[in-house]
């Protein structure tokens, strides 16, 4: 039980000491698929937490389409060991903890500036695109333009980060979630795919990885699955969160299948590796265990 959080680390290659081939290494693409019954957002939160704690040099670019900043901020605060992380993110918080300043003063300042504090710290960049809309007139162009604009924002952020001497900090780009980007693009799959391909190119050029959350059950037919099969093709890690076949239980929230695709470089060939877990989501993290190993 105590070692259980490491199962996800192990499956994603995030163990300390392993630098290559993990989910947070250069050019790596992680696809998270979930369904209405079982949300996969907790994996996203886990990856954010790991990315920010990974030898404390990781940087996260978060495309928040599904929730406002406060949602993520609170969840991450509740995840274990995260207070110290946030203290690093917000030096003012540490000040607060030491009681250096009265609380009232602190909050007066907090109200308007949380995103700017992030930007000052340049560890967590949140693209707050919850209300992202592409204006409806002359639809196709506006969608294209909007996505190009979004991409160029990401690109410039990545370039700014990597131009800084940050000891080659690893940048993770997270998208929560892609299906909403599709809705914002009014279903024009080509544009979304173009956007993704640009992002993928970016990850291979810079020290980046891309983590995408998408829903599996919204693509019913073969034609509709085009986007999903593209994603599956591109991804190095495919994580599926599914409900249990027997329905949801109080102590098992669902099952997780992590597929690590085989790679072949420099004559080294590694085969596909799939691992299957049951999971239970908690406020301070997630418990993973092998099916049947917990009674």
């Amino acid at each position, binding site marked *: 039980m105590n070692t259980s959080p490491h199962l996800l680390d192990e499956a994603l290659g995030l163990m300390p000491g392993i630098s290559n081939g993990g989910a947070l290494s250069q050019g790596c693409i992680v696809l998270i698929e979930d369904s209405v019954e079982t*949300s996969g957002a907790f994996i996203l939160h886990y990856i954010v937490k790991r990315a920010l704690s990974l030898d404390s040099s990781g940087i996260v670019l978060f495309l928040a389409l599904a929730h406002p900043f406060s949602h993520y901020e609170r969840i991450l605060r509740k995840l274990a060991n995260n207070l110290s992380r946030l203290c690093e993110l917000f030096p003012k918080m540490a000040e607060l903890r030491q009681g250096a300043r009265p609380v009232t003063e602190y909050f007066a300042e907090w109200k308007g500036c*949380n995103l700017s504090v992030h930007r000052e710290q340049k560890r967590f960049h949140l693209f707050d695109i919850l209300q992202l809309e592409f204006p409806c007139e002359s639809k196709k162009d506006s969608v294209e333009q909007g996505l190009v604009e979004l991409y160029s924002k990401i690109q410039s952020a990545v370039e700014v980060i990597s131009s800084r001497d940050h000891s080659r900090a690893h940048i993770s780009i997270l998208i929560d979630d892609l299906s909403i980007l599709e809705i914002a693009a009014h*279903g024009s799959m080509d544009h979304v795919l173009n956007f993704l391909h640009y992002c993928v190119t970016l990850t291979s050029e810079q020290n980046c990885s891309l983590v995408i959350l998408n829903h599996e059950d919204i693509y019913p037919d073969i034609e509709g699955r085009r986007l999903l099969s593209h994603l599956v093709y591109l991804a190095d890690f495919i994580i599926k969160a599914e409900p249990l076949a027997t329905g949801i239980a109080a102590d098992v929230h669902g099952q997780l299948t992590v597929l690590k695709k085989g790679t072949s470089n420099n004559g080294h060939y590694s085969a596909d590796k799939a691992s299957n877990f049951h999971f239970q*989501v908690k406020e301070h993290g997630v418990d993973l265990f092998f099916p049947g190993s917990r009674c």
Partner: protein
Amino acid sequence: MAATRATRPSSFSRNPSTSAAPSIPLPGVKLGPGNAAFVSSGIPDLDRILGGGFLLGSLVMVMEDAEAPHHLLLLRNFMAQGVVHRQPLLFASPSEEPRAFLGTLPTPIAASKEERPRVPGPNQEGKEQGLRIAWQYKKYFGEQPASQPQYKDVKQEFSNTFDLRKSIERHMLSSQNIDCVSIEKISDLAPLRERCSSFLSKLNGDNSSIGLAGRIAIQSLCAPQCGFSDWDMVSFVRSLRAMLRSSRAVGIITFPSSILPHSFSKRWQHLADTLLSVKAIPDDDKDLAKLLTGYQDMVGLLHVHKVAQISSQVPVILEANTFSLKLHRRRSLILEKLNQAPVEGSSGTSYGTAGPCTASFKGSSIDF
């Protein structure tokens, strides 16, 4: 509530200037653990099941039964509760004259008539003071389901029981807080989006309704007579959800999921924070009647698919997902867990004769 929530972290929010406002109970708003604020669904049982009610800032979706109007029961109670609390209400419907629907809202049953013992009036003030303190302490005990005994006393104000046979008194509907929109004639959803956003911005700005929680009710958004395109509708739902997140309001949308293409129905369901579905019960299903007790009194089934979880990653696991909708004394709506009727014949008697534990253990292992 949600507006302040967006900018303020919870655990440290003891700043008197900011935390004083939410601690004064707003009419019809109940504070739960972790800075959550609820408004009532108009059905006390549903509030209890959902852990306090509908979360402010969330989007509730109800999947309709294509052949029965049971979703209207939920919609009516939700709207009537808002009218009772004098909360601003925006109602959109595919009918020609949406205002006519307001005439069918049920009337609240006076609390004194109820059989459940309530707190007498004079004590109320002191009681509330105590509760407020209890809420403050709750933070330190971690999250607990909101259906604590202490909440029961507040319920009297928070949610009413409605008499479905009588319609609400006219004078309650005459307030200016009720806004009706027909979505039958409009060709795209931009005007409705405008209405919703101006409605929500009024909640934050206007002095008369400041501090009041708003309610948006949209009936059968994807009804065939409207003829919106699939992408238009799903992007409307998405932008409504985004707008609600930063406001102190609850949106409820009912939709006949069976007439949407499957993939879009799933997209809608993903966008819902709280997802419910209603189903009618066929009158003469003899098998089902044998299986369930109280089958005669049931009007339908309510299924809870998702419960809103803002600022938390832990899914809410309910003890039961399916509830029977019943009419209590033929007038008020109640929800009950499904009870399996005792099965006649062999297994029932075998349990009866089994006697002590060990014996029944044996018996059951043979039986199954």
